């Protein structure tokens, strides 16, 4: 899966979970909290994406998610590693 597709999935999922969020206005250098998301929102976004994309992100990797772009990178890396295995 290419990074752009993952970004589309992240935006769609974030818009489903974070109230009043316009997915088109998301800046990947910003954090979800800058758009009003809570830590539970973030965990729900990650959980939903793991199921949708069939990606298994270890809990220990969550600390790397500081920005929207870093979540996209983490999912991209996870999927790439799963493919190799």
């Amino acid at each position, binding site marked *: 899966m290419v990074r752009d597709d993952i970004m589309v999935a992240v935006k769609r999922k974030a818009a489903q979970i974070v109230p009043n969020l316009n997915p088109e206005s998301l800046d990947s250098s910003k954090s979800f909290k*800058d*758009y009003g998301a809570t830590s539970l929102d973030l965990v729900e976004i990650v959980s939903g994406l*793991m199921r949708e994309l069939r990606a298994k992100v270890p809990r220990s990797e969550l*600390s790397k998610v500081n920005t929207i772009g870093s979540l996209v990178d983490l999912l991209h890396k996870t999927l790439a590693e799963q493919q190799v295995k």
Partner: protein
Amino acid sequence: MTKPLAERLPVSHVHVWQCDLRVPDTRLELYRRNLHPEERRQARTIVSEIARRRFIVRRAFRHIVVGKYLCIPPGKAIVKQGSEGRPIAAGTHGGLRLGCSHSGELAVVAFNRSAQIGIDLQVKRPMREMEEIARYFSFASRRHQKGDAADADEFFAEWTRLEAGAKYFCVGLSKVDLAKVNNLSTQTIFLRHRGEQYALSIACKKLSTTAVLFHRFAGGPGGELNRAIATCDTAKTPEKSNVVSRDER
């Protein structure tokens, strides 16, 4: 001369102050002016207008209540991140412990004099991933696994307990150890505000506190504070997941 609230806080008590984050524009502007320059800068980076407004109110609220506890003006009350990432009221030399949380339209600040505390607040809302999250963080009960919709209360109690524990230990959610959280004394209550239900958990060292007193912040830059709305006697309740209903409108 008025005694600082901190000196009137019994060592075995936790005071929890709650604040409504919805304020009129005029008050918001007053609050914004009372923020420290770094906080104003942080506020400007928040994209969502609602999230920005809430940030300003909860930081101003924190300054006001910390100021009351230390008997200093809100503008002089500085809450810093300690070396471990804990919020520390500057000038208290660790004598006054505090914890902060916010969710939806509410923010809370908790104070204790004797021991470290962790606090977490979460507005209850429909969850798409309840079972998956409970499993991911290893607090899935049998009912979570069956997907019982009536189990939402338990989920939010467990979630806030986990987050309060993470804050107590000063670790992120990726590193929090549920077994260690289970060894803490935790209290969870549900409270209602503007038609929404919130779960609130407090974590502290076992037997270090005997009572949790809840107060509502009446607002205003002067901060009218002394309004107790509920108490929770930890000596008479189970140590974990003590869930009581508190309809607070």
